[in-house]
């Protein structure tokens, strides 16, 4: 029962898939964070007739399954004749998806800074941008970081869906091994353990940070 025909070479193949998972996660989170910061800032500080429509638009990626978004964008890029690889498409789709969540986190973080603190900063003679840079961002960062870590882990798990448009990431790699050696339970457990090893320590770190920073408030 405890013998397996999965070789070290197979494990290497699966780990290579894990590398792809991490690469997609990295680019998606990078794009998502940059866009999310921008959108979140706009939503927090701009007048309602800019913030509200932007909020509605950013709500769409959160209300449509990621799988459908991937398929739509993948076919749309062929329609407009852009020759992007599935890897680029996945990173862009996941990046936009992450930016929608990230903008919500950034907006929440900025709005969590009390108005009185900002007024105090202004009355000390800081300019509007100084107030944002020196007061609001450092304070908002504490609120934002735990949720941002959660978002990163969420995106990492969601990268499993890119197998649908033909990328061999961790889950697809393990599925290929399953097809060959016919031991789904064992191979999927290995894949699950790899996901777990990538996600669990960071999840603990996020929970720890959240607890620690709440104590100081």
């Amino acid at each position, binding site marked *: 029962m405890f013998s397996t025909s999965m070789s070290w070479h197979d494990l290497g193949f699966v780990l290579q898939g894990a590398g792809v998972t991490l690469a997609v996660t990295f680019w998606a989170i990078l794009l998502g964070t940059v866009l999310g910061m921008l959108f979140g800032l706009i939503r927090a500080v701009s007048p309602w007739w800019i913030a509200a429509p932007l909020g509605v638009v950013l709500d*769409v990626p959160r*209300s*449509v*399954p*990621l*799988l*459908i*978004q991937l*398929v*739509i964008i993948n*076919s*749309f890029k062929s*329609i*407009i*004749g852009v020759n992007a690889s599935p890897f680029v498409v996945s990173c862009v789709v996941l990046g936009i998806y992450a930016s929608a969540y990230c903008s919500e986190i950034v907006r929440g973080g900025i709005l969590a800074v009390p108005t009185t603190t900002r007024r105090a900063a202004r009355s000390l003679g800081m300019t509007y941008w100084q107030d944002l840079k020196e007061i609001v961002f450092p304070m908002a960062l504490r609120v934002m970081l735990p949720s941002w870590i959660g978002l990163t*882990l969420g995106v990492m*798990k*969601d*990268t*499993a*869906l890119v*197998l*649908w448009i033909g990328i061999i990431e961790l*889950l697809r790699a393990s*599925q290929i091994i*399953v097809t060959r050696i016919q*031991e*789904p*339970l*064992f191979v*999927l*457990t290995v*894949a*699950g353990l790899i*996901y*777990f090893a990538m*996600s*669990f320590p960071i*999840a603990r770190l996020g929970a720890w940070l959240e607890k620690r920073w709440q104590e100081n408030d």
Partner: protein
Amino acid sequence: MFSYTFHWRAAFQALPQMLAGAVVTLEIAVLSMIIGIVCGIFLALASGSHSKILRGAAAVWIETARNTPALLQIYMAYFGLGSLGIHINSFAALLAGIAFNNAGYLAETFRGGLRGVPETQARAARSLGMTAPQAFRIIVLPQMMRIVFYPLTNQMVWAVLMTSLGVIVGLDNDLTGVTQNLNVLTFRTFEFFTIAAGFYYVIAKIITLSARALGWRLFRY
């Protein structure tokens, strides 16, 4: 720039089929939420219990559900259980996978909700002569529901979105499955999936808005 002609008419003709798919999607989501809520409450109770075995089992379930992709959990139900000799169809596998995932996330929500109900409430109920299960059911649970209601609706939307993964294990009668079938027949990928996206968006909005209305009605003081 465009050498592609959109064919929306064929796509719109398939609306009734897709609507039927949307009903199946909603069915799976609702079922998975019911199972998830029941399991989630027990997991939350187990992770707060004094028994080490119960706590350990709950921790394994919760951390597995939260730290691996939902798709992997569905694969586990579909392919993994098969190697134990338990063969279930893609509908059951999808339902099991999403329910497992929901239970893990909801257990954390419920744990927070339980912490939000003061312990004195349960003690007061006990000293009024209620048994422990009675105190939990009649006093603690309703107050907890008030706290967890909005996270619960979020999870419901998540459940609907997760049902789209069914197509990967070969489910063909939910919204994404129907869409994929039509796509294979016609190769009008963009049109069909855009309409499917519209369906999902509307479902998500209906859930969010009706939950907001319901919450306002149920939980006002």
